[in-house]
């Protein structure tokens, strides 16, 4: 009965480095997705459960663009986030703005319902096994790093996600637009009185968050299969990541995304059966010790 406990066999150091690198790559996805969630929660106080579906939509946009419009990977990196952002803005206008004044958890339930609808429709038409999407030819092949073959595409994923995360952080923390956004979160009435169109900023912020999710989706398409279930498989984990980092904190989301990706990667080496659950264990521990997460503000 205790056979489910881990068997400790330390792999040789090169192999360990390889696993750490893989963990970092997975962490990149967690970071990007939790970044989007953190931005939306920080600015709008909405717990956006639709985020997973928006990630899936991004991947599907890329796939549809390739198979029906002949549009390749590189344009899709820009077009898919734009398309999904537009859809997000529609959602925000139609549904979300009615519930801002209500308790957080209504937002969670509403976005959960929207996620079910989007996923259900796609599952109905595309089934739940994945559609293949090939790695763009420029990024094919791998580099021999000595301790492993690092596929070029996966290296690109790390670089792209770091760029996006740093760019977003810079936008929000260091530019004037970001300052307006942060002010509007603290005191929307006052900011509105200064002549800034707060509702429009809120809408655009939601769109931006959705675009981040979609960008992650396009990056994911060549690695994971493009499947209607890809969002719901990952969303619960991403929530855990955001909670660990602290729900409104950009830095927290990104940092915990990468760190947890590495922790998960190491678990896959020592105790692979637990790799799906280790992040929840960490979350429970963090929440009990530091209720608002590492970088978060109090709920």
């Amino acid at each position, binding site marked *: 009965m205790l056979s489910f406990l881990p068997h400790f066999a330390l792999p040789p150091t090169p192999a360990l480095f390889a696993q750490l690198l893989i963990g970092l790559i997975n962490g990149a996805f967690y970071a990007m997705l939790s970044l989007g969630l953190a931005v939306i929660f920080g600015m709008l106080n909405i717990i956006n459960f639709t985020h997973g579906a928006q990630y899936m939509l991004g991947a599907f946009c890329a796939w549809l663009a390739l198979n029906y419009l002949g549009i390749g990977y590189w344009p899709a990196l820009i077009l898919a986030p734009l398309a999904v952002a537009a859809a997000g803005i529609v959602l925000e206008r139609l549904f979300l703005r009615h519930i801002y004044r209500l308790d957080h958890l209504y937002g969670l339930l509403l976005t959960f319902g929207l996620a079910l609808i989007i996923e259900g429709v796609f599952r*109905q038409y595309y089934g*739940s*096994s994945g559609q293949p999407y090939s790695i763009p030819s420029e990024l094919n092949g791998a580099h021999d790093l000595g301790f492993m073959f690092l596929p070029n595409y996966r290296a690109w994923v790390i670089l792209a996600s770091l760029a996006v995360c740093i760019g977003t952080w810079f936008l929000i923390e260091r530019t004037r637009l970001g300052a307006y956004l942060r002010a509007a979160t603290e005191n929307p009435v006052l900011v509105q009185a200064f002549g800034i169109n707060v509702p429009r900023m809120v809408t655009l912020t939601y769109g931006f968050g959705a675009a981040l999710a979609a960008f992650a989706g396009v990056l994911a398409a060549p690695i994971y*299969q493009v499947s209607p279930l890809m969002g719901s498989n990952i969303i619960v984990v991403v929530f855990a990541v955001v909670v660990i980092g602290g729900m409104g904190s950009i830095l927290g989301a990104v940092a915990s995304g990468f760190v947890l990706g590495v922790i998960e990667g190491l678990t896959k080496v020592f105790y692979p059966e637990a790799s799906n659950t280790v992040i929840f264990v960490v979350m429970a521990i963090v929440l009990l010790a530091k209720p608002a997460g590492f970088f978060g503000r109090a709920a």
Partner: protein
Amino acid sequence: MMQTKIILAATALVALGAVSAAAQSDGPVKIGVLNDMAGLYADLGGKASVVAAEMAAEDAGLVLGKKVEVISADHQNKPDVGSSMARQWYDQDGVDLIIDIPTSSVALAVNEVSREKKKIVIFTGPASSDLTGPKCNAYSAHWAYDTYALAHVTGSAVVKSGGDTWFFVTADYAFGHALERDTAEVVKAAGGKVLGDVQVPINTADFSSYLLQAQASKAKIIGLANAGADTVNSIKQGAEFGIVEGGQKFAALLVFITDVHSLGLKAAQGLQLTSPFYWDMNDETRAFSKRFADRVGHPPSLDHAGVYSGAAHYLKAVKAIGTKDPDKVMAQMRAMPINDFMTKNGKLREDGRVIRDMYLFQVKKPSESKAPWDYYKLIETVPGDQAFRPIDKGDCPLVKKN
């Protein structure tokens, strides 16, 4: 009073949902196709299996004076959904035969319902050899393939051709464990060694970490004890990490033609696999496959062929004895040899196992393939009594020990 009205209306809504046609014992023969319609096994079975069953029903014509009815449902790869569907079908909806049921965990659950209700089920989709072992059931037939046959035919062929060190990447549930266990036995019996294994949780999309472990083990053969999208992903991602270039080979223990189609010949070439059926083997298979492809748009997988074959044999048995009574029909199915495009002189054994020839195929190189779906070349034919587990080795309670 408004609340009363609402409650009564709600009751009516409930009744609408639950009322179903009363089962009639003298109704037409009804076949229920239960499988995964939208998930990872939807391609190898799915809606096309329903077409296969319908073809068998049409070819049988009038049975007991009426046309055969075919219905279907999606078990979503969940044992509770599958078993309640089976229960409802047998209890309420007058279904006489349930067929297909890929996903061994669901198959085992439906097996229990069939045993309890004493009604017939034919398994064409699932792999677990436990269905004819400890869980054997007098009212079931395991029609196409099982983990034992796969392990023995593919496993021994790979070891014979030099693959004597193995590392397993295993789907962490009953099917994967069974497949790994059976194959490991074959490898060791043939003098090979198992260098290690890694258990991959279900719903894993990214195998990179596990493939790296396989690479690090330096085993000549990486045995994939998984199926469907898991197999496809393992091979695809293996290509990313240069596994084959590094000198290791994949042994995919359960592969359907739909998986090869997903992978493409460039990635799949050289894979050896075991199957009871391939659409392009001879004139008979080609004739059936053309009829099937005209209706569905692609050739049949081994599961589709199995559904036709199983349903046809059942209907033949019912016609022969003129009744649907499950005990008599099972006896008749065992008495009659199974002969159709897919099976030559197959036999349904006491433990529910159908003994048929199994074939070892190799996936063609892209240059060798002359037409769409022209994927396999035949390497070896293994007669049924050698491919499948001997009847006395299975721990089946129905088999009398001499």
